[in-house]
């Protein structure tokens, strides 16, 4: 036993050294090929991602003039003044609230729709197309459409409410309602993407699992909670991470619908960055804000991986 193992090991080493000698030229060629194939992406990332990231760090420690030129080194003062400003904490709170309003509701709605349309019932193709439709919509078209629906006097939403005998709501101008309204519109806009991803995830699950559940007498509610949700949990987890990221990065709907108002009630993080950098031309503090946003997204994502991965059921 021992001898054969030793012999084998010697053979293996010999083979390896012979192989190395023969393939040194090949290795060089492979490396060149590898870098050549990566080059286009790598150059673009370097110029438009890594350099800007480093420059953001640099800018965040300076005061700048309106043309973006560095005027004075201030160290961490930009960050300190940020953390002292109420506006910063307000936009953080608004962003967190916005995330809490949109992510769980949006995922639940998409999951329900996917569960309802995933079987082979008649007419499902039409329903699938309808539920996917919002994926083709952009932030700006969705916002313009909803600004019409939310219009206080001529909007149809208030008209329907009045038919139900409910007093009209000042959707976008009432500080108590504005963020809710923006969230409703965002859930609608994002539902298409989540729906498509969940539907794809569900189609990877064999039909017979549901058939056998049905034969076992599991009702629709039980098979949803006990079978479907665990099976689709990897997809759900992926979507949750993506949705939190995109909630933290939303900007367009606030810019079009409310301009961050009324009274800062919809001023999310990215809107603050935009205001600071491109309306007030404070690129230094704008960069500081952007870096704080980056840190938050990173932290939240790591946290989700720490907490979520354990609960996800990979099959």
């Amino acid at each position, binding site marked *: 036993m021992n001898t054969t193992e030793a012999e084998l090991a010697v053979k293996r080493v010999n083979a390896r050294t012979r192989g190395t000698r023969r393939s040194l030229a090949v290795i060089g060629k492979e490396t060149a090929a590898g870098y050549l194939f990566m080059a286009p*992406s790598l150059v*673009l990332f370097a110029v438009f991602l890594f350099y800007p990231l480093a420059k953001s760090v640099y800018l965040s420690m300076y005061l700048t003039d309106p043309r973006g030129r560095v005027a004075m080194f201030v160290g961490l003062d930009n960050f300190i003044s940020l953390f002292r400003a109420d506006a910063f904490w307000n936009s953080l709170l608004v962003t967190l609230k916005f995330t809490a309003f949109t992510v769980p509701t949006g995922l639940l709605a998409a999951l329900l729709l996917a569960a309802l349309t995933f079987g082979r019932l008649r007419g499902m193709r039409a329903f699938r197309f309808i539920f996917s439709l919002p994926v083709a919509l952009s932030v700006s078209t969705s916002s313009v*459409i909803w600004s019409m629906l939310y219009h206080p006097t001529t909007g149809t939403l208030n008209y329907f409410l009045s038919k139900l005998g409910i007093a009209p709501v000042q959707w976008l101008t009432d500080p108590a309602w504005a963020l809710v309204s923006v969230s409703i519109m965002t859930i609608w806009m994002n539902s298409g993407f989540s729906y498509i991803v969940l539907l794809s995830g569900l189609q990877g699950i064999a039909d017979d699992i549901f058939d056998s559940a049905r034969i076992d007498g599991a009702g629709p509610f039980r098979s949803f909670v006990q079978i479907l949700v665990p099976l689709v949990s990897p997809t759900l987890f992926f979507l949750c991470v993506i949705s939190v990221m995109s909630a933290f990065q939303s900007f367009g709907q606030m810019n079009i619908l409310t301009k961050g108002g009324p009274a800062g009630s919809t001023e999310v993080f990215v809107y603050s960055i935009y205001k600071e950098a491109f309306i007030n031309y404070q690129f230094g503090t704008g960069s500081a804000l952007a870096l704080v946003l980056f840190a938050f997204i990173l932290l939240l994502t790591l946290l989700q991986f720490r907490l979520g991965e354990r609960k996800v059921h990979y099959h």
Partner: protein
Amino acid sequence: MTTLLPRPALLLLRRLMHYAILAICALAVIYPLVYTAFASFMTPDESAQYPPKLLPSHLYLGSFRTVLDLVPLQTFVLNSFVISAAVMLGQIITASMAAYAFVYVSFRGRAFWFAVFIATMMIPWEVTVIPNYLTVKAWGWLDTYQGMIVPFLASGFGVFLLRQFFLQLPRELHEAAKIDGCGHVRHFTGIVLPLSRPALASLGVYAFLNAWNMYLWPLLVTNSDTMRTVQIGISMLQFQEVTVWNLVLAGVTLVLLPSMLLLALGLKQLVGGLTAGAVKG
């Protein structure tokens, strides 16, 4: 319930409820779009009525004509199309090349660079927007096509998606190509790319829609009507002095048509394709 009703009746009832719920949900999802389409066929008088009219009395096409006269919507659409098509092509090329390197070329540092590429997905676009704006401005690229195309030509997501797909291609093909003395370039263009058409199409649809729907960047780097994209043009409509609703919504309808068409054609590619590699590690 099971004891009260015979089994077929129970199934029928369940199915009916299923359809009823679906119908209500479908109505809620589609209502804003139907409303938009209907309102764009209304005459200005109809759209200003209270209580609001829900259906147009006849197919009035005047709003479309007026909105096309008021704003250069054709130019906006053309701009968006040029930008989105270029970004789509560029991302397919750069991403498939990099993905090829990560799957078929064995070189030192491959794992490291792959980790770097994955890490790019973690950097939010907003963090780089200020320096990128300054870069593009310094290069004199404000208000140009290249200013809106070049920063988006590479995609970490695209590389990841295609890598996962390439990994699923049969390994024997690669071995056979190697034995035939087929170089990397020929292997890439002759075998891997043609076999990956479904994945390339998924990435294409995704990249095109994303570029078509971009908002913040074009808002920052364009300032003339000739370079505006659809998305900025549409939100400008709302703030024009003539805020006649049906005009705005007629514009929205026109802008929505191409993306709806693309969705109808590419939905099958999107379902399944997008998550083929992304979900399971």
